[in-house]
């Protein structure tokens, strides 16, 4: 009994750390899907792209992956604005976002994965950093720094986003655009510009999430697909567009996944998130804290 | 005589915003009811709740003697409730004739129990298009139409469902004087054949000449309901339109 309890506590702690990281991964989707209503299923692809960029620079120059991701923020932001512009002109303006917009992002996800596959092959890649390896110990609880540092970085980024959304003019404009585009126009703010900025930010978060991902686990091109379900499951469960809800849902998913992996084996983990998603969509589509 | 439409205590909120607050409304069979109110007063929301496009939180809607709460919109249409949308929602990839075919195939056909003959459907589509003044545009697509023509199509599509009660939501916006006369004449003719009509409009001359009874909605509440000439003189109504 003692052993099981230790195992359970360990699983829960690991799950919480994982959950923090999941929140960072999902933050971008909370913005693009939750607030802007854009089903960007290519988001995990950008995260993996971020991972690989962090990996190359880390391996070549020994720079810490998180620093790489921060340096890459403007690049990812720019990429996001360009993609939004294409999406807007081709689909949103024509009112075709449901079928063609989805196919577009699916194509982008797919192309990203195949390009990475061609460039790097199927081998798992991992980065090197001083905090990968050592752990903190508090009694029966193990806190691998490999998980703890990304979790803390994730929470920092998440808090920064929340402050941006609730305190800055642009951030509040983003919230406004998600609720009432027309009213925003009446206030002489261009909704398209706001959405472009918001989408740019959502892709920028992928840069950071990618670096955190490759710290936590080795990556290969198809890893992104595992995260599609997780990301949307968390977003929907947390209530679309609610950043605090996303955090809670992410922690919840992390813990459930961790417990399942510990007691039933890791091969069931991918199904957990998706199962969550299907159940949430079927029974409580507005999520835990949704509007 | 029992009302064909009976709305009781209907309320609808969107998050914290109360769009409709305890609306009571009765419409008699064969009546011509006008519904007016400033923009944002909840007229379209009321229509959406009556027709099942939106679900109201509280209150009840009864149509033709039966409670329709919980029924999907398409089922209410089958029972004889039809509406046009304030912002036209045509089927963009279908021709105008095919736009009208949809309610015929799915409402009239359902009621009749037997499949309609192709020629009858064709003829009926042409007839409806003629009635609203779109006769030779049968095989055009909605994108070729002007805003005004799209509103006419909306009305024709609602008529194609052969309703007992037709709700015309701002079908006359932007029409010329003679076009308004045409549509009014059309609605009167429909009414004479037994169809109850609720007319939602901003064009006061049309509303006044058409309605047997007038209801006024302001900020989600019904503030007046009675004979048109009495309602327009009601101080509360005047205040709502002209401000304090």
């Amino acid at each position, binding site marked *: 009994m003692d052993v099981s309890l230790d195992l359970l506590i360990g699983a829960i702690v690991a799950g919480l750390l994982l959950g923090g990281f999941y929140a960072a991964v999902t933050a971008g989707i909370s913005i693009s899907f939750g607030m802007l209503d854009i089903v960007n299923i290519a988001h995990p692809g950008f995260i993996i792209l971020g991972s690989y960029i962090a990996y190359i620079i880390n391996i070549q120059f020994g720079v810490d992956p998180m620093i790489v991701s921060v340096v890459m923020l403007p690049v990812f932001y720019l990429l996001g604005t360009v993609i939004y512009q294409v999406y807007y002109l081709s689909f949103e303006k024509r009112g075709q976002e449901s079928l063609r917009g989805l196919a577009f992002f699916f194509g982008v996800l797919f192309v990203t994965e195949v390009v990475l596959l061609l460039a790097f092959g199927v081998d798992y890649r991992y980065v090197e950093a001083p905090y990968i390896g050592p752990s903190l110990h508090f009694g029966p609880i193990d806190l691998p720094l490999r998980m703890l540092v990304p979790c803390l970085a994730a929470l920092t980024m998440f808090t920064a986003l929340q402050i941006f959304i609730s305190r800055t003019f642009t951030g509040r404009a983003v919230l406004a655009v998600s609720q009432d585009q027309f009213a925003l126009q009446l206030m002489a703010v261009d909704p398209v510009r706001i959405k472009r900025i918001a989408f740019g930010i959502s892709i920028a978060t992928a840069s950071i999430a990618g670096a955190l991902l490759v710290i936590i686990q080795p990556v290969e091109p198809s890893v992104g697909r595992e995260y599609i379900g997780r990301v949307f499951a968390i977003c929907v469960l947390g209530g679309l567009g609610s950043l605090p809800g996303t955090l809670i849902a992410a922690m919840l998913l992390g813990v459930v996944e961790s417990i399942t992996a510990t007691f039933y084996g890791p091969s069931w983990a991918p199904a957990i998130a998706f199962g969550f998603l299907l159940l949430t969509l079927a029974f409580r589509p507005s999520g835990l804290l949704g509007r | 005589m029992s009302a064909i439409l009976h709305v009781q205590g209907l309320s609808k909120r969107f998050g914290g915003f109360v769009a409709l607050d305890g609306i009571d409304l009765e419409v008699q069979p064969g009546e011509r009811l006008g519904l007016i109110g400033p923009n944002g007063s909840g007229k379209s929301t009321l229509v959406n709740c009556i027709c099942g496009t939106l679900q109201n939180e509280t209150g009840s809607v009864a149509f033709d003697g039966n409670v329709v709460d919980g029924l999907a919109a398409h089922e209410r249409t089958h029972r004889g409730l039809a509406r046009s949308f304030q912002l036209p929602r045509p089927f963009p990839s279908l021709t105008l004739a095919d736009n009208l075919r949809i309610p015929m195939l799915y409402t009239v056909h359902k009621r009749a129990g037997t499949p309609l003959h192709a020629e009858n459907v064709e003829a009926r589509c042409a007839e409806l298009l003629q009635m609203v003044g779109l006769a030779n545009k049968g095989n055009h697509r909605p994108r070729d139409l002007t805003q005004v023509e799209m509103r006419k199509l909306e009305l024709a*599509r609602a008529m194609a469902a052969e309703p007992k009660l037709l709700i015309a939501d701002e079908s006359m916006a932007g029409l010329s004087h003679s076009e308004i006369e045409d549509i009014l004449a059309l609605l009167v003719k429909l009414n004479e054949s037994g169809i109850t009509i609720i007319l939602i409009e901003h064009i006061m001359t049309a509303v006044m000449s058409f309605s047997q009874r007038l209801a006024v909605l302001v900020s989600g509440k019904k503030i007046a309901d009675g004979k048109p000439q009495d309602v327009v003189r009601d101080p509360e109504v005047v205040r709502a339109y002209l401000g304090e």
Partner: protein
Amino acid sequence: MAPFTLIAIAVATAVFLVIREPNIEYLFVAGYTIVQYIVLATAWNILGGYTGYVNFGSAAFFAMGAYSTVALVTFGNEIDELVPESLAPIFHLIFPLSIPTLIVIGGVVSGIVGFGMGYLTLRLRGAFFAIATLAMAVVLQTLVVNWEFVGGSGGAYIVRPGEFPGLGSYMQYLFALMLALAVLAIVTARAIERSRLGYGFAAIRDDELAAEASGVPTLRLKLVATTISGALMGMAGAPFPYYIGYLQPQSAFGLEYAVNSIAMPMIGGTMSWVGPLVGTLLLGTLQQVANVTISSAVNLLLVGLLLIGFVIVAPNGIVGLVQDRLRARRAK
């Protein structure tokens, strides 16, 4: 039988005989893949192009067909271990099941899966449905990977008989069956297009809210679309274990099925049965050539880029472009 159906059967027969002439086994192998995609693309388009609901999980429906075959064949091989002695003779009479029977069963299984998934998610917006299809694909793959009876992650071997009496190699038989399925898929799609059901689908695709208000029972029709689409995909998957010999979950649930089922109709044109056919023939042939000359990864990259390109530039696909050209010429 309707004239179109007869023509379709005639064309399929002609194709079979033409492919048979040079007696090169590879032609059957490549031809099977392309014709299989005709079925998948046409099936996808019934839900995607006609009704407007994107399915990212085509691979899952395909794999359900394949794995019901694997399960039934494995069961057939192990009757004596699994069934009480008294009942064994009955089972030995029924098993092994012929491939046409397996196809029907595969279709039923995938149809039920489609119905079930639709029931859970079709009340919500199209975007949620699309995400749910992705989710479902992963869940089903995880289940299969953990199901030892069908081989789990290690895979399953299905022995292909060497010959089919009267036809020649077994591959020819599989090819003929797939051609028959393609005929079925196209005839079904065309029948839907011209029917009351097709109008209902189009109304849902164009404006679901207005469709409801016009009396279209949108949920019911969407369920019909999902079920038919899923069933056809399952039927396409049922012979797959025989075709490939050794079936691993990664191949059955492979990404190329999801991408191609979407890319082929969207590039060909989603408004009618012609589009998926055109798209499949073009893309399918392109890929067979690319697989041999370049590499399968570059081939998939091309498909992805073409999909993005067409979706942005030519929303109605190749068929749409041709129609526009004809309309412009007629206007002159």
